[in-house]
């Protein structure tokens, strides 16, 4: 490397690399600002992506870089897995895809910390191993071949590295569980140790931190490090498994913020400003986003982490189910078509059922047909309908539903009173009047779409099974509600077909 011409030594100089980093994280910030607004979002995402490309190129310019074959191998594997996964994932499976991508990020952090430990762990907590130290700290300065006599690896490097390892491992496993739950590989209902859950979590956390402290203090044992990663992995499982599926978006967002924080910690350990800035921005914005989402569902983050809809909630829900011995009225596609055809105003309330059946195009056909007949149609979108905020908007936009027909909850609710028919397609918990009327319900206090205010309600649903939160919906027992059982897509298509014959 020493015989390189002047130009390339400029390109490889620390200052030039830092300038590129500064360009990169300016683009991240600009990109995020763009992502926060509907008209600028597409461009914002692309700006951030270009920023990332610049940061990667800048890093590869470090004179200390080597093992090009392995770098190419790793990036090729990542691209070969990531691109098709992102390209082919269905819009309905988007949330779990985000969880998965978040998880691998956390996994990368944990692995990086592990290698750091393998490389420098012997200097943790000591002041004597100068030679090993010389390698780590020059990473940031790009002077790897100059031997400087400096004190041993500073303790803070070990602290941040161990912190990153724990959080990264929690994030990796937690995200995988979240993926499993949303993908329905693992049951969506809370799985827990019951009342011992809190104690178990606490013990796992304490043990992981204790192992970390021991490592920082100089316990030069790789076995202990692996033990710490495993404890953090168990903690990730133990925290996410008891959380009910309905809270999963909030959990993914929280784990996203965690991964950001762990990336920032890795940045401090490696003395790399790009990692610090990008990681911390994600950590901070992710926390805000988590809070916004939790607020939209009227859930507090501590309550979610403490066991979600688990424990008392699920039990109450189950006993509540028995109390409803009211009758459920089921209807046919033909009847539903007549009801809709003679309505003046119809509000469509989409939910996860629509997403999973890919019924958005069928729904669009139906509403076109209704509009031809002069029926005023709008869509009421609950902030957390589906499994992610904005999930329904994405799907309906895909089906070319005009944007101005999509009403957010606050705008939609006052209008239900002058609505003739509310057509609920696969939405459940977000319409449950129990959230308003039944203080003992686990979802009590959650803002809902007040469909029961409308003159009549048609609910398209596959069965009487309770929804994601695992609680019974009083709406179905309301005398003005009729149920149309079936797959959302075929049910909607049948209604459209019947409508054409009227």
């Amino acid at each position: 490397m020493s015989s390189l011409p002047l130009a390339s030594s400029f390109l490889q100089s620390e200052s030039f690399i830092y300038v590129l980093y500064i360009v990169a994280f300016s683009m991240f910030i600009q990109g995020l600002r763009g992502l926060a607004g509907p008209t600028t979002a597409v461009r914002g995402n692309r700006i951030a992506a270009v920023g990332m490309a610049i940061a990667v190129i800048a890093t590869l310019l470090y004179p200390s870089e080597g093992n090009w074959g392995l770098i190419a191998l790793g990036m090729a594997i990542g691209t070969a897995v990531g691109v098709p996964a992102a390209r082919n994932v269905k819009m309905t499976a988007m949330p779990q895809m985000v969880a998965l991508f978040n998880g691998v990020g956390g996994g990368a952090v944990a692995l990086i910390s592990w290698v750091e430990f393998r490389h420098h762990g012997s200097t943790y907590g000591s002041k004597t191993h100068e030679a090993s130290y010389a390698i780590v700290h020059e990473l940031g300065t790009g002077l790897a071949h100059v031997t400087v006599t400096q004190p041993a690896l500073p303790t803070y490097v070990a602290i941040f590295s161990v912190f990153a390892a724990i959080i990264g491992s929690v994030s990796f496993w937690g995200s995988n569980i979240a993926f499993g739950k949303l993908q329905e590989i693992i049951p969506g209902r809370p799985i827990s140790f019951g009342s011992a859950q809190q104690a178990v979590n606490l013990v796992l956390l304490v043990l992981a931190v204790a192992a970390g402290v021991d490592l920082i203090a100089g316990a030069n044992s790789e076995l202990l490090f692996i033990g710490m990663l495993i404890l953090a992995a168990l903690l990730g499982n133990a925290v996410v498994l008891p959380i009910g599926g309905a809270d999963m978006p909030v959990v993914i967002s929280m784990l996203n913020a965690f991964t950001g924080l762990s990336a920032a910690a890795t940045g401090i350990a490696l003395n790399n400003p790009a990692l610090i800035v990008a990681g911390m921005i994600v950590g901070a914005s992710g926390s805000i986003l988590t809070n916004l989402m939790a607020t939209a569902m009227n859930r507090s983050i501590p309550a979610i982490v403490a066991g979600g809809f688990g424990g008392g909630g699920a039990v109450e829900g189950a006993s509540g189910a028995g109390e409803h011995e009211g009758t459920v009225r089921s209807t046919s596609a033909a009847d539903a078509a007549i009801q809709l055809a003679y309505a003046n105003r119809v509000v469509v309330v989409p939910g996860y059922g629509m997403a999973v059946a890919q019924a958005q195009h069928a729904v669009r056909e139906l509403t076109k047909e209704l509009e031809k007949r002069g029926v005023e149609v709008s869509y009421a979108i609950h902030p957390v309908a589906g499994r992610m905020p904005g999930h329904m908007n994405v799907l309906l936009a895909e089906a070319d539903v005009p944007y101005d027909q999509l009403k957010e909850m606050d705008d939609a609710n006052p209008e239900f009173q002058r609505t003739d028919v509310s057509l609920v397609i696969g939405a459940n918990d977000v319409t449950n009047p129990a959230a308003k009327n039944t203080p003992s319900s686990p979802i009590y206090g959650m803002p809902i779409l007040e469909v029961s205010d409308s003159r009549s309600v048609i609910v398209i649903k596959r069965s009487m099974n309770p929804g994601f939160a695992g609680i019974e919906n009083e709406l179905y027992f309301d005398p003005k509600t009729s149920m149309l059982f079936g797959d959302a897509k075929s049910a909607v298509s049948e209604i459209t077909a019947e409508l054409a014959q009227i």
Partner: protein
Amino acid sequence: MILGSVLTTNLAILVLAGFIGFVVISKVPNTLHTPLMSGTNAIHGIVLLGGLLLLGLPLLGAFSKVLLVIAVAFGTINVVGGFLVTDRMLEMFKSKPKPKGEDDDGADGGAPK
């Protein structure tokens, strides 16, 4: 550079970046929560750089190399997949204004009939 100043400089960067993160996201419509989460998710794929830096180290053992190749692969999945998925989500938003303007009039009013 004195070590203390490396740490304090980095901590200053950390804190300022945190404030930027708070400010940028303080007000976002619900609709954009998912794409935004996905976008920030892609950005923390920056950990890829950590993997790249460590792979450049001399004297890596074979097992460390294996771990790092996995880390680089993970980081790449996070970055590439994250940005692509976000772009796909947002494509849907982008196509939104088109049908309004040029497509069938049935979409908007249905009044002509």
